[in-house]
């Protein structure tokens, strides 16, 4: 029971991080039909810059703000330098070019910061734990991540659903030609989306940094999970990304525990120890397959 509560909380917190990464990605896909494999790089960059800025500026919070902003600027620079030349090109070209960007930046990070994993200290304010229920203490920081993620999600939802720019973004995701026909500079709109997306991914990277080891290539695992989130949620849909991120987060924590437990119930001894982990590691992908089998366009398709 206690385990379940902890896993649920962990799942929610993972879901919030995934949402932060997936939000920018899904809008970029939705609005520009642009396949950006290099989005995970922003997450990695956020974590590394967070470590560096925290050391330089003396503290987690300064690191968080400076790293998120720099990741956003870096994303805009990449967009200006490379990505804007790829709009309208084939999926294949976009995949290859952004694959090249990943290779370059992962190695660049290795060159600058080295291959050894780095650590980022939690802010002292949030480093404790509190009694969640009898016999269960839960780290404050994880709750803070979930809270911050939720706050950003609400802010983003408000931005997308209540502002004129947000209205255009939603319209662009469902019908790009119409937005262009309205005389809106779709490229400027897109730069806005891209910059915010890059910043959010960087923000997620800094938030995650105290919980994981910061190392080259860390972005791609998150990126592929974010893909799963987008596919489940429906391309271009913020609401879908939010729901799917929580689903993926929960499935990966609660489901993992449940399936290992189930394997032990159904099978005995060594067989359970073998089947359990293998099945657990495949679980989110199986959920993705199930969703696609029923709804190929995802749970909340943005395009009619």
């Amino acid at each position: 029971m206690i385990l379940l509560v902890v896993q649920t909380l962990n799942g929610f917190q993972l879901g919030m991080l995934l949402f932060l990464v997936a939000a920018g990605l899904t809008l970029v896909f939705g609005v520009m039909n642009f396949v950006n494999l290099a989005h995970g790089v922003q997450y990695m960059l956020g974590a590394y810059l967070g470590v560096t800025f925290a050391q330089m500026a003396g503290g987690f919070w300064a690191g968080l703000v400076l790293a998120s902003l720099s990741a956003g600027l870096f994303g805009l620079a990449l967009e200006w330098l490379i990505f804007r030349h790829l709009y309208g090109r084939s999926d294949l070209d976009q995949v290859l070019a952004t694959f090249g960007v990943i290779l370059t930046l992962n190695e660049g990070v290795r060159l600058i910061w080295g291959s050894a994993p780095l650590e980022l200290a939690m802010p002292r304010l949030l480093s404790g734990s509190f009694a969640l229920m009898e016999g269960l203490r839960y780290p404050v920081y994880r709750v803070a991540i979930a809270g911050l993620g939720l706050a950003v999600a609400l802010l983003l939802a408000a931005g997308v659903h209540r502002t004129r720019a947000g209205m255009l973004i939603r319209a662009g995701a469902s019908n790009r030609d119409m937005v262009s026909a309205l005389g809106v500079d779709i490229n400027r709109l897109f730069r806005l989306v891209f910059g915010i997306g890059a910043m959010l991914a960087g923000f997620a990277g800094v938030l995650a940094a105290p919980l994981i080891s910061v190392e080259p290539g860390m972005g791609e695992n998150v990126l592929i999970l974010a893909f799963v989130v987008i596919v489940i949620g429906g391309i271009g849909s913020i609401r879908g990304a939010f729901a799917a991120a929580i689903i993926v987060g929960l499935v990966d924590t609660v489901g993992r525990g449940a399936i290992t437990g189930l394997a032990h119930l159904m099978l005995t001894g060594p067989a359970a120890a073998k089947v359990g982990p293998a099945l657990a590691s495949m679980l989110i992908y199986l959920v993705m397959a199930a969703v696609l089998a029923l709804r190929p366009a995802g749970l909340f398709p943005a395009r009619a």
Partner: protein
Amino acid sequence: MNRALPWAIFAALALVPLLSALGVIPGGYLPLLLGRVMVFALAAMSLDFILGIGGLVSFGHAAPLAIGAYAVAILDANNVQDALVVIPVAVLAAGLFALATGAVALRTRGVNFIMITLAFAQMVYFAAGSLADYGGDDGYTLYSRTTLAGWKVFDGRAFYLTALITLFLAWLFLRMLAASRFGRTLAGIRQNRPRMAAMGFNAYAVELAALVIAAMIAAIAGVLLANEAEFVSPAYAGWARSGDLMVMVILGGVGSLHGAILGALLVVLAQEALGGLTSHWPLVFGPALVLAVLFLRHGIAGIGARRG
């Protein structure tokens, strides 16, 4: 010239062991390297069949490659090394994997298809890492290489020949397939799916069959790869490996089949050469890839088209 090129490539590959035996060219390292090139060429060629001819941009082709390699490892751990068992198991496993994942992935198009194939390959990556009996994340070192009814055709110099013959047969097979009713139908679906549906073709079934065939061939490449390295690890299914295969196909010229050999040669040699110069070789390879896509009018395929 165009027709002669693939034959010239195979002739050159066949001459290498001969020339090195005669001492005309250095032995040892070059045949080893080319053996590796041919293994990746086989996997890339099978990808070219679905990508170049079928237009299915799979970013998960490392998955069947890894499944083939793990078939070798798992059977090796259970003391089965005969290719007559290993290869059917590898091919069947990869085929079933492609059937199941393809059935889902083909319900979508474009960007979604790319992301889903990538995700399913990642599933294989994590599943392989959870196989504690077979090395888990650290990978598994083979006790002994695969044999064919007792013959050591995957060892030493014989490996080169085995890889060459396999690659040659695969090329003949895929070339036959490409020209057949099946292959032309697949090409038609790439060019104009609604038209093909209106003409009575079940595009979904044809594409699914193509994915299964390509996965089976990639699994054979996986068997070769496990033997070549005498080692298997989850990284075989990694996204970077899938990306490499795709780069090989593009560099060689999409849809040409034999171009995959040139692409594999280029990528393996470039990584080897750059790796010899600097441990940070992706800092050269990555930007080169970006620049190639940006500045060659028809993507990188343009080079391949001119060369082919």
